């Protein structure tokens, strides 16, 4: 069964540092998403991405965040200057072309900002 993969599985960084989280979508999927889940809290939508541009973003997705698909396969989330409150699990999800297509989630990257 095709899977979404994410790297790294864990990342520890110092406050103010930049981090890049990577996702490899399921091969024929064209819609990409990032979500985050702070420990003990709900899964929160960050951003959706289609056709090389952002489709929708939440209030959380401020100027410190950016997404891109640099090589046509990987889908990345960059946090420019991390804050303590960015510590969370970050999940990538992908879906296919059909309007009601299901979003398939990756295993997540656990980010810890010290």
């Amino acid at each position: 069964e095709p899977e979404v993969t994410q790297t790294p599985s864990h990342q520890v960084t110092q406050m103010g540092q930049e981090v890049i989280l990577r996702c490899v979508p399921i091969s024929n999927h064209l819609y990409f998403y990032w979500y985050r889940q702070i420990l003990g809290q709900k899964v929160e939508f960050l951003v959706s991405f289609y056709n090389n541009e952002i489709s929708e973003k939440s209030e959380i997705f401020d100027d410190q965040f950016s997404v891109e698909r640099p090589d046509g396969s990987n889908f990345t989330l960059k946090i420019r200057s991390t804050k303590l409150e960015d510590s969370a699990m970050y999940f990538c999800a992908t879906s296919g072309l059909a309007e009601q297509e299901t979003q398939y989630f990756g295993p997540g990257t656990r980010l810890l900002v010290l």
Partner: protein
Amino acid sequence: LAKTTQPISMDSYEGQEVNITCSHNNIATNDYITWYQQFPSQGPRFIIQGYKTKVTNEVASLFIPADRKSSTLSLPRVSLSDTAVYYCLVGGGDTDKLIFGTGTRLQVFP
């Protein structure tokens, strides 16, 4: 986006059938109903999706009444490994973002 309401927690024993009901009174005409399962420190895993009536797959069944204001996820013969949080989500109409609630924490006992 339609808000969903589901029980905070449920307990069951191995081998029993578990039914988790979700209310979504403001569901839109073009919204689908999707259920996900999440284990600690893992990504949400798709279980089942439906629009109306009944949908069944190898893992679960989803019952949706005619008015679509609620839905029931049915897990047949649960095992200890079904202990997880189950989320009911409604959407797929005007927006593709998923809005997660707090879910239902299912605890299965031996």
